[in-house]
């Protein structure tokens, strides 16, 4: 009963959504031109995969995300550890980072294009910024709030300051760091779609902006579904990895 319902219930909601979608178009609330039927989208989906277009766009976006994510997360973790662990670094740079943080990611795009021109670089820059902040904030929190009892236990065992950081504070902060990385990865997909509005000729974001210009709404929806699916897959992958790493 339980296994059936865990599978059946989500399936029912998906079918329900498709049914409502179909009815909305058929009743005529939207014209078919602005809102294609599920069937049209399914056909577009097939074409999209069959002619290999899919992989070009997927790879273009994925490569940007991979580079931007790795750079952003590396910076976020490094600065997070420094700010979380050393009081003077916190005093020095935390106010600066907190001042930059409220600037919406999309607001960086014009400047990014001026700085880096057209091509992959502005998008990568945007992703770096988008990933940096959540990773940084969560790392700081994890490093700063090691349970005091564990610090005492480590001091009692004779921990040197460097080994305390490496063997106690960092492993203790790992769950928080992973939380930051997960949020960052989600934001990376947002950044890539925004950045592909301008200056590129491939990418899942480019695909949906481009299709919109030609009113190919079926293609737009296909792109949205693929972006959503990729976001889910990469998130699950990260969750799986973090569970493997954070035993006990």
């Amino acid at each position, binding site marked *: 009963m339980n296994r059936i319902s865990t599978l059946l219930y989500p399936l029912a909601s998906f079918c329900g959504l498709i049914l409502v979608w179909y009815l909305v178009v058929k009743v005529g609330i939207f014209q078919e031109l602005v809102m294609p039927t599920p069937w049209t989208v399914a056909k577009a989906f097939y074409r999209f995969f069959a002619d290999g277009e899919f992989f070009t766009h997927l790879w273009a976006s994925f490569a940007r995300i991979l580079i931007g994510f790795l750079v952003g997360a590396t910076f976020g973790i490094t600065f997070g550890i420094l700010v979380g662990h050393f009081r003077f670094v916190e005093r020095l740079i935390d106010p600066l980072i907190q001042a930059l943080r409220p600037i919406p990611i999309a607001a960086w795009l014009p400047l990014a294009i001026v700085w880096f021109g057209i091509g992959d670089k502005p998008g990568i820059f945007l992703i770096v910024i988008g990933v940096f902040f959540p990773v940084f904030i969560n790392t700081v929190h994890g490093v700063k709030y090691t349970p005091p*009892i*564990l610090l*005492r*236990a480590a001091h*009692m*065992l*004779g921990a*040197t300051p460097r080994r305390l950081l490496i063997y106690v504070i960092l492993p203790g902060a790992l769950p928080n760091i992973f939380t930051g990385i997960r949020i960052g990865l989600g934001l990376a997909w947002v950044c890539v779609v925004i950045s592909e509005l301008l200056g590129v000729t491939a990418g899942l974001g480019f695909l949906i902006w481009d299709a919109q210009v030609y009113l190919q709404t079926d293609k737009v929806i296909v792109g949205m579904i693929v972006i959503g699916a990729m976001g889910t897959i990469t998130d699950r992958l990260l969750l799986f990895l973090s569970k493997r790493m954070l035993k*006990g």
Partner: protein
Amino acid sequence: MENKIVLQAVSKIFNGGTTALEKLNLEIKPNEILCLLGPSGCGKSTVLNLIAGFDFPSYGVISLDGKVITRPGPDRGVIFQEHALFPWLTVTQNIAFGKKLRGGEEDERRYHESVKKYIDLMGLRDFQNHYPSQLSGGMKQRVAIARVLVNEPEVMLMDEPFAALDAQTRLSMQLLLLSVWERLRTTILFITHDIDEAVFLGDRIYVMTARPGKIKALLPVPLERPRQYEMMISPSFNETKAKIFEMIKEETLILSS
């Protein structure tokens, strides 16, 4: 014999102005189990934190083997009330963690053998690869004790280590601690508010006054070693218990008036 640990006229005044300890004198002899007993809030844990080096006395001197204590170290192993194990390490890794944290010069093979010895001694052989979250409260405290003993401390400081356990587990842990002590004769400072526990375990008992904490009395426990469970219903056990009970009652009355 020289005293292991000496507290001379130790006072502790916290930042808020609360006087936790006032001119407290205390001596721990080598190889004894010394119990520190008192009503809750009397500053028992403060005494332990000062000896451990987690905190510093406002006045007075604390020394180990004649040397003034300035910071925490593996020569004064602490068993906390909560287990304080590292959740991402297995039982074995937790017990062997001290060497790693110190970057210790101990010989790798000898240390490894020593870790195994204390795993066996504390009855943890079947749990070596478990993580703390998979262990019961009693088992966690066994790991905590093994983790301290493997460093061969001069003194083991125990802060109400069995207070959070159920009555049966507590008794079995007391018996285990006694049997381990019979073999190793590690000097132990045992803090508790449980009179039975203090009398059953201790060679001597310091009874503390209500805040500000001072030593009210020092009682030798007239029970022989090795301690047996049956001694808990002997007349001398009950006499000692009654004596302490009277003292603590006075203190509780002061607190509530």
